[in-house]
């Protein structure tokens, strides 16, 4: 033992004090991190100093004070009341809402179209599968921005209002955009909608209970009669008893404009069409690989157990496919939202467009780039948070 201790001491003596200090694991970890921190804060400080100097030289006052000033910036489409006399803050809010609105509709429509094409790609029908795969290849491999320009150019080539295309009664397509009828909105419609949402909740609860019952008691409960009563009859009864009108506000071409109904601008329409068609191609691939990820063995095992094909889909295939589909679908939804920023190129006034116009007017580029980044980071984080919660629910516990 003493021989051993002597050995250690001899070894320790060989190393100098400083050498052993620097070669200590903890010290070396600290040195690396301190160097990184120094580099980071050094460059941040350097950039900030340059910025301060440059702003002073250009007479730009930094800060968010400009947000309360009058914007004087016309925004054609706004979901909340807005006039150019409103403040920059309100203008940016309108832009953010426009971003959210186009992203929302794009996500919903792209999911529907993408799922349909994804399922079609796995079809046994050769023609259907082939056409779907051509769709995916065609729209996935051309830049979104180019597709937006293409749709926008085509929309502008549409005839003027006088010769507007009228594919279905009440729907007009012209170089002023797409017009379609809406219900004359009344309070009664609100109550009917509320009744529908409540009944939808009740139906999902009932469906869950029914399927649990079926597993426990071993006999199938009839689900559809209850669902029809809940989803169709109750809302209709609510609507009629409150006297909701069934009058549609029909769009009418009047001179150079269309009166009545709802008209979406060519800019919004082109952006929506572009985002939906482009992202549906990606969603189709996600859905297809999700469906294909459920191995043939699972189908065979389920069939061997005597499960009905419908039950195989609901109990075996979908739950497993969803696990594979949800994570990439989340990032695709984020891509849709980020892709909506291309609005600026075709003149739809989303947050990027409003902020860049404000930038040109005020010169507050740092603050406004910060605002854009803040808006997108908030949206990104919210979507990934929501999807993570959902994902945690559908994910299987794996060993």
């Amino acid at each position, binding site marked *: 033992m003493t*021989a051993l201790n002597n*050995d*250690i001491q*001899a070894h320790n003596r060989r*190393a100098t004090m400083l050498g052993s200090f620097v*070669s*200590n*694991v*903890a010290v*070396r970890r600290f040195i690396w991190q301190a160097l990184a921190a120094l580099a980071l804060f050094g460059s941040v400080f350097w950039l900030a100093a340059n910025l301060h100097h440059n702003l002073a030289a250009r007479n730009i006052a930094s800060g968010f004070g400009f947000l309360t000033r009058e914007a004087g910036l016309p925004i054609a489409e706004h979901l909340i009341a807005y006039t150019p006399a409103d403040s920059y803050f309100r203008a940016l809010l309108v832009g953010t809402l426009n971003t959210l609105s186009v992203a929302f509709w794009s996500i919903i429509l792209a999911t529907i179209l993408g799922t349909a094409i994804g399922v079609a790609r796995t079809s046994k029908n050769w023609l259907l599968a082939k056409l779907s795969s051509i769709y995916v290849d065609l729209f996935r491999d051309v830049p979104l921005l180019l597709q937006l320009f293409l749709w926008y150019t085509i929309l502008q080539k549409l005839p003027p209002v006088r010769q507007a295309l009228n594919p279905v009664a009440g729907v007009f397509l012209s170089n002023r955009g797409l017009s379609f009828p809406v219900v004359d909105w009344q309070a009664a419609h609100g109550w009917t909608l509320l009744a529908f949402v409540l009944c939808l909740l009740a139906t999902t609860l009932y469906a869950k209970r029914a399927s649990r019952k079926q597993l426990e008691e071993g006999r199938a409960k009839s689900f559809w009669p209850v669902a029809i009563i809940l989803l169709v009859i109750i809302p209709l009864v609510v609507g009629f008893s409150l006297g909701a009108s069934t009058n549609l506000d029909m769009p009418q071409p009047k001179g150079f404009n269309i009166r009545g109904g709802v008209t979406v601008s060519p800019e919004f329409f082109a952006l929506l069409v572009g985002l939906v068609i482009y992202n549906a191609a990606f969603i189709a691939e996600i859905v297809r690989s999700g469906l294909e990820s459920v191995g043939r063995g699972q189908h065979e095992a389920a069939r061997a157990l005597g499960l009905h094909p419908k039950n195989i889909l609901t109990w075996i295939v979908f739950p497993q496919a969803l696990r594979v589909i949800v994570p990439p679908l989340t990032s695709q939804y984020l891509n849709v939202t980020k892709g909506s920023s291309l609005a600026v190129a075709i003149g739809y006034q989303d947050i990027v467009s409003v902020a860049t116009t404000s930038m040109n007017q005020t010169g507050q580029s740092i603050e406004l780039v910060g605002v854009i980044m803040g808006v997108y980071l908030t949206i990104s984080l919210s979507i990934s948070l929501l999807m993570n919660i959902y994902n945690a629910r559908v994910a299987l516990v794996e060993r």
Partner: protein
Amino acid sequence: MIAETDPTTKATAVSIQKVNKWYGSLHVLRDVDLDVAAGERVVICGPSGSGKSTLIRCINNLEEHQQGKIVVDGIQVDHNIAHLDAIRREVGMVFQSFNLFPHLTVLENCTLAPMLVRGVARPDAEAQARAYLERVRIPDQANKFPGQLSGGQQQRVAIARALCMKPKIMLFDEPTSALDPEMVKEVLDTMVSLAKDGMTMICVTHEMGFAREVADRVVFMDHGQIVESGSPHSVFGQPRTDRLKLFLGQVLREH
């Protein structure tokens, strides 16, 4: 701890004193004391979860112990990078799952570390690697990739790879557990021949035959403690504790 070899005539290769380790609240090593002399062959056995793998992984700092002292070839296992580097050069290790580098050929697996760490020139490193591959009796596979070899061959390559660093001490962490039964023998034969050449070896294994043939000492661990230790004859022949008796009963039934 009484070692059968006399520490005054033979230098201590590994000295483990009062070592404790926790995973969170789980106490995996409890006051472990173990001295291994140079040239000694020690076999550590015990039920799974007894801490035997953790113990030998502490010797080359793959796991960090929290209390006590481990000294390897006169160098303490501590937070000093120079110490750790020196220990890694002196201690070779063979894993249960081989851990060969699948993107490198057998020869490259054996020459990489000597060239990078010891600064051996490529021709010398290759000559040495071929010599060791000859020794583990797979000289003709030098240019194949690990994925093309059987499990037994892979494990023998792993032994050759460790030997190429000319370690003073070899650690074996259940080297035959992942092998098909018919391949266990070829690996054990290699280890026996290594033992006969006087290599200091610490082996975690359940191979009783191997322990009887080559071990100077058998250490039985359970619940993070060394329960019994002594010659293979005394440990396997006259177990003193119930825990060891139970364990031997289970192992013998399996084999």
